[in-house]
């Protein structure tokens, strides 16, 4: 029987703590309340998107379209909001995201098209649609988006930004879905061994399609949050979000082969990405070098994970 120390499963958390400790030693500004709040707010949107990505990756898939989907949701939410109010706008934005996810899911699960290719296609397609419906210009109307909505992008509840409450609540609810419902267990089983899951009575195609719906809907939530923060629907928003989200999920210890991964660890992965960027900024590292450093960290984390699982 293989015994390993409890800490081994907590590599992402340990890395985050070490990263924070090192940064705090190198610069006093890191632990200032303003900076910490900043990190939380910056992480909030990406955390929501990375949770959706976790569903897809645990289910054995992959989704490159989340950045475009977030932009689409933000723009549609803004457009609808200007006509029909905040609630209708937000729901329309999230629904648009879910619809993109449903399209991805159906093509991947029922037509057996490779997820990488499918979502690469929808990434470009959806971005095109965003430009078509907005004419390439930000959506904020003549008088701007409703004031309450914009306030949502900066106001706080109990001292914590609304933007941070969203992923916190979602994390609690979705973790329950992933771990305590039959549906969640079926997602893990499908990603871990599609054939075996099918032979155990799991409707694998529906499960796979559903993970993309979650991913699209959560990208939609992220897009609506982003619109609130930017005070407009930006057609160019969310570029490269897919890459950050995938990197965060992998940093959180999920396997791209499916069947492994945890929502809260993916959120920690997001924090690692954001804190790293923040630390490099505070240390005045040249922004070109920042990209190099972040790339190295992603590859190193994946390699470390490989080595760990190979030694088991």
């Amino acid at each position, binding site marked *: *029987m293989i015994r390993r120390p409890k800490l081994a499963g907590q590599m992402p958390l340990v890395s985050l703590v070490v990263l924070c400790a090192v940064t705090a030693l190198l610069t006093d500004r890191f632990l200032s309340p303003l900076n910490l709040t900043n990190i939380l707010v910056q992480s909030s949107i990406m955390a929501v998107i990375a949770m959706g990505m976790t569903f897809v990756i645990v289910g054995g898939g992959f989704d490159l379209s989340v950045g475009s989907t977030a932009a689409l949701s933000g723009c549609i939410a803004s457009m609808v909001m200007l006509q029909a109010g905040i609630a209708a706008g937000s729901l329309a934005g999230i629904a648009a995201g879910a619809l993109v996810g449903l399209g991805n899911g159906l093509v991947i699960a029922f037509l057996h098209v490779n997820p990488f290719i499918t979502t690469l296609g929808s990434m470009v397609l959806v971005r095109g649609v965003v430009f078509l419906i907005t004419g390439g210009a930000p959506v904020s109307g003549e008088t701007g988006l409703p004031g309450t909505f914009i306030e949502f992008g900066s106001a706080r509840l109990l001292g914590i930004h609304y933007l941070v409450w969203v992923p916190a609540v979602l994390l609690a609810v979705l973790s329950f879905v992933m771990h305590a419902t039959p549906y969640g267990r079926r997602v893990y089983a499908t990603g871990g*061994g599609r*054939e075996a899951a099918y032979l155990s009575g799991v409707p694998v195609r529906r499960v796979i399609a559903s993970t993309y719906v979650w991913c699209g809907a959560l990208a939609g939530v992220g897009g609506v949050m982003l619109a609130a923060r930017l005070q407009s629907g930006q057609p160019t928003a969310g570029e490269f979000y897919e890459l950050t989200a995938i990197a965060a999920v992998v940093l959180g210890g999920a396997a791209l082969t499916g069947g492994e991964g945890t929502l809260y660890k993916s959120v920690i992965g997001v924090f690692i990405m954001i804190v790293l960027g923040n630390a490099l900024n505070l240390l005045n590292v040249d922004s070109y070098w920042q990209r190099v450093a972040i790339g190295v960290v992603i590859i190193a984390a994946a390699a470390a994970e490989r080595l760990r699982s190979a030694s088991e």
Partner: protein
Amino acid sequence: MEVSVGTGSERAVPAVNAQDICKRFEANVALDHVDFEVYPGEIHAVVGENGAGKSTLIRILGGVRRPDRGSIFVAGRPCNFASPHDAIAAGIVTIPQELRLVPALSIAENISLGDPPLRRFGPVALVDRGRMREAARAVLSQLDFHPDPDRRVASLSFAERQIVAIAKGLARECRVFILDEPTAALEHREVERLFAVLARMQARGTAVIYISHELAEVVAIADRCTVLRDGRVVAVKRRGAFSVSDLVAAMTGGMMDNSAHAAVESGGVLLAAKADGVNNVELHAGNIIGLAGLLGSGADGILRRLFGLATPLTVEVRGKKYRFRNPASAIAAGIGMVPGERSLGLVMKLSVRDNILLANLDVLSRIGWFDRRAGDRMVGELIELLDIRPRNPKLKAHALSGGNQQKVILAKWLARNIAVLLLQEPTQGIDVAAKAQIHALIREFAGRGSAALLNSTDLAELVRLCDAVCAVRRGRIVAALGRDAGLDEAKLRSAIAG
């Protein structure tokens, strides 16, 4: 343990000689001061239960693992393998149980993989496809197998792939040939063919290390047999000095129950279907019915259709008619399936617990989430009942031995109270002790008022386990042999051969 097998002086030097090998994995001692050698032209079998250390020993000889202590000599020269590549270079070729073939490539490409015949044009070397095909044909014909060498390996059956894997080994210069459970997926005729090949290799002076759970085969072909138990060599015996029961006794360290079939009262009809489209098959409560057929006979196809995996059939389960289009509906109607490949029966990345729960999520769920405590209780009871080792529900399925994996697959279905269990090759590649346990479980399952329908290429297993056996040829049931009509292996063999 001094044994000399030589007929001539050149045999004094073993082809490979491992001395005092020790290997531990964390707290587990896998090999404990093991000595092992094989001479040129000798077939040396290694037997033992799962976990006895067979796999570790051949992995060390094959360069996959390094011993903690001890030394290896190839043809008298000390060797220290850092990788499988070193072992192959020294002439030690292993045919693993899970064949390392590339399904997308052709037979010829697979056989010459890593060392293809080249045609040189100055500095440029191209693969000489003509010679590659020829080489493949030549080596395959030694095995009496004559496929189109351009066929993709993906289109071959498992037995055919295995022949290709063996051919791949033969195509190299090899001094020592290690076969790990080579006959696990073969049927009678192909086993004979393999033995003929081994005899030819033996005559050419190749040393063969033969790992098998099929003790009858070991008795039939091995010149010598080493028995491992708990990482130690407990016996080394020469041909004629061991029988199947000796080996079993040495492996298990005692006698084991080998209970014969006990007649079971049969009850109401649980399943009825024109299983092959023509002939009706009925399973009564308490029945264990076998499907026997040569490879490609379609016996497993019948099981697949009953489970909704192939063209649906009209199936009557507990008096209700169904046409299953997918496993989920078959399971809901009370049918369970133990697939022939264990990787299809279990999600290897998930824990034992999650695998057992997977088939029972609907039963354990109330309004959207499952009852975790009831689930844990159920898993705990099944692990005890089926004697699944180690007793750790959180262990990932891939960490278990084959026999224990098969028990977990059975546990999945036993938890559900299903009417009919379909089993494909239920004890393939499983050690004797686990095999007996699995047979007992199937009997107990039927004894509780359920029924089992299984196919197996192991005719002895069918004869021992089943109330009746249907012989299948080309997807059709051509004969049914009942126990009262004197079911035996010879009759069964002639029925399936036609």
